């Protein structure tokens, strides 16, 4: 007997008991829907973290200055001006795990081009910063040595600044060579950076102007009082495959030595290992995904047991039919196939409806909770495959029971 005919018999049998078939399918529908929705939520969370890691640059630590203590009152983080360019240079030199340590100073100011202006953030940096953040240029060039040492009035701008000053449709090349004034200081734009997107905290990382460190210190901050070579933060990138926590310990020891801190004295700097924080987040969101899917999988399993239950009832109810089919020439495997196909049809129709439910559920969670959801083709295929597997697994026992009936006994069954 061919598969198509078997399928038709199965569909007819399911049609005869519509309510029962629907209720049985409900277990699979809910199971598949739940698996797809949970995986979509979990994958969405994971994708968000992964994106953050990517925009941050890999293996990144950030070192901030510590707090000042004035008359017993402790200022907040960053209030002291303890970090210098020399600290950054020493870290690269002394700690072998460190690939690059990029000092930077941050400020805000009004940027003006032609008749448009925009309040933005500027950073004084050197080229190491682009390496640490893995941030390529899309037009122009980065700073030259003479510009860095001679406080050259040149700037590299982010995509948002480009759009705000030069117009939404401006090409990166349009900005090159133009003069932009920041805090009344004219800068020649020499480069435009690639788009970076949102930061971990949701701020726009492309709304930024980069100038050489010396230029920022001398011309934008107006040579405020303080250490001559002080910097705001140091972005540290460790080499691939090196332990970040080990590097962190070595940097801490080096910094305490350089700042001549006594044992027992507080650090005058803070190191934040962003990559590790994000990786921990990623790991926990991955575990969450697995957990959610496992819980949803249990409901799929329960749905499978429902199928088995109904198939067993069905085999008992249709014992005479089985006997008759055997009497007119059905072989044991024809009967086995018939009931197996029925169970698999039940679970596959359930799976298809479950996919619709899963899509609807994911969309509504995405809309109402505002979470990011991502439905992956693999997740859908997996759920359907799992449902088919459940149909075969839980359908096999009842089907085998049916196929092992003796024609005589089945025919006489009351």
């Amino acid at each position, binding site marked *: 007997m*061919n598969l198509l*005919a078997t399928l038709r018999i199965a569909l*007819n049998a399911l049609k005869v008991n519509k309510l029962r078939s629907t209720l049985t399918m409900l277990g699979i529908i809910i199971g598949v829907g739940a698996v797809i929705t949970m995986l979509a939520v979990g994958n969405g969370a994971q994708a968000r973290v992964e994106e953050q890691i990517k925009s941050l640059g890999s293996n990144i630590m950030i070192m901030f200055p510590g707090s000042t203590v004035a008359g017993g009152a402790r200022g907040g983080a960053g209030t002291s001006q303890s970090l210098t360019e020399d600290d950054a240079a020493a870290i690269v030199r002394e700690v072998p795990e460190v690939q690059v340590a990029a000092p930077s100073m941050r400020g805000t100011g009004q940027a003006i081009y032609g008749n448009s202006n925009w309040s933005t953030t500027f950073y004084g940096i050197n080229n190491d910063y682009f390496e640490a953040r893995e941030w390529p240029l899309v037009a122009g060039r980065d700073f030259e040595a003479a510009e860095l040492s001679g406080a050259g009035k040149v700037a590299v701008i982010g995509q948002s600044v480009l759009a705000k000053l030069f117009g939404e449709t401006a090409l990166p090349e349009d900005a090159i060579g133009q003069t932009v004034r920041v805090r009344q200081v004219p800068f020649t734009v020499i480069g435009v950076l690639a788009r970076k997107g949102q930061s971990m905290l949701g701020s726009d990382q492309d709304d930024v102007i980069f100038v050489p460190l010396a230029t920022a210190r001398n011309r934008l901050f107006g040579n405020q009082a303080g250490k001559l070579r002080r910097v705001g933060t140091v972005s540290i990138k460790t080499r691939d495959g090196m332990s970040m926590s080990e590097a962190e310990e070595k940097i801490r020891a080096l910094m305490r030595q350089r700042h001549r801190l006594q044992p027992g004295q507080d650090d005058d700097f803070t190191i934040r290992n962003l990559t590790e924080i994000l990786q921990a987040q990623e790991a926990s969101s991955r575990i969450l995904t697995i957990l959610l899917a496992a819980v949803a999988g249990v409901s799929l399993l329960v749905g499978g047991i429902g199928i088995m239950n109904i198939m067993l009832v069905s085999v008992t109810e249709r014992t*005479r039919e089985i006997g*008759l089919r055997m009497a*007119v*020439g059905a072989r*044991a495997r024809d009967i086995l196939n018939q009931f197996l196909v029925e169970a698999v049809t039940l679970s596959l129709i359930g799976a298809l409806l479950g996919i619709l439910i899963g899509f609807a559920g994911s969309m509504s969670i995405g809309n109402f909770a505002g979470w990011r959801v991502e439905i992956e083709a693999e997740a859908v295929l997996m759920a359907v495959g799992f449902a088919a597997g459940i149909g075969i697994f839980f359908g096999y026992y009842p089907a085998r029971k049916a196929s092992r009936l*003796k024609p005589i006994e089945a*025919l006489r069954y009351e």
Partner: protein
Amino acid sequence: MAEPLIRTRDLAKEYRMGETVVRALDGVSLSIDAGEFVAVMGPSGSGKSTFMNLIGCLDAPTAGDYFLAGENVAHLSGDALAAIRNRRVGFVFQQFNLLPRTTAQENVELPLLYTGLPKAERRARAKLRLEQVGLGERLDHQPSQLSGGQQQRVAIARALVNDPVLVLADEPTGALDSRTSVEVMGLLQSLNREGITVVLVTHEHDVAAFARRIIGFRDGRVVEDRANAALDARAAQPA
């Protein structure tokens, strides 16, 4: 003499019921030629139904041999027996055993499904057989929409659809009133005239009277095997 269609040799069947062993058939040796119309009679428990199940290949004997058209089929596998039932035997049951909520057409097609014929051919053959039993107008009726006699005629069409050499009828009139019984028996009789071997199990004498040979069973043994004298007498007279 040609090989008979059915030949059994010391055919025996035992059932185990708890501790006791019931010998339902106790060494039956007989032959039925192609084209015969045989009624198997006997009280309940005489072994007539067991005999019928064995020659219909629905069950396997405990001992002895059964030759169907010369081939020993007593100890074939389940699948081989299914193939024989499918292609060479047609069954008519007391309770009709039609599939509910299924049209007459589809009920008759059922054996062809396991023969592997294409759909168009299945439909054509089923239609032909239903017309042959006088139900050409009721192809799309479900069993619940048919009378008992019509249902049994659908069952006969189903038994014939695979062109069997042997039709086995187990109390085919047991669930019918006497008028429709006569109709159904007349149908079996006309099939027999077309050359199909019919074996009928019954305990009613007026049903057995349609057969040309009567075999009596008691306690698992053949106690009587005679030609139906009445029928022969009737046949001798011009109708």
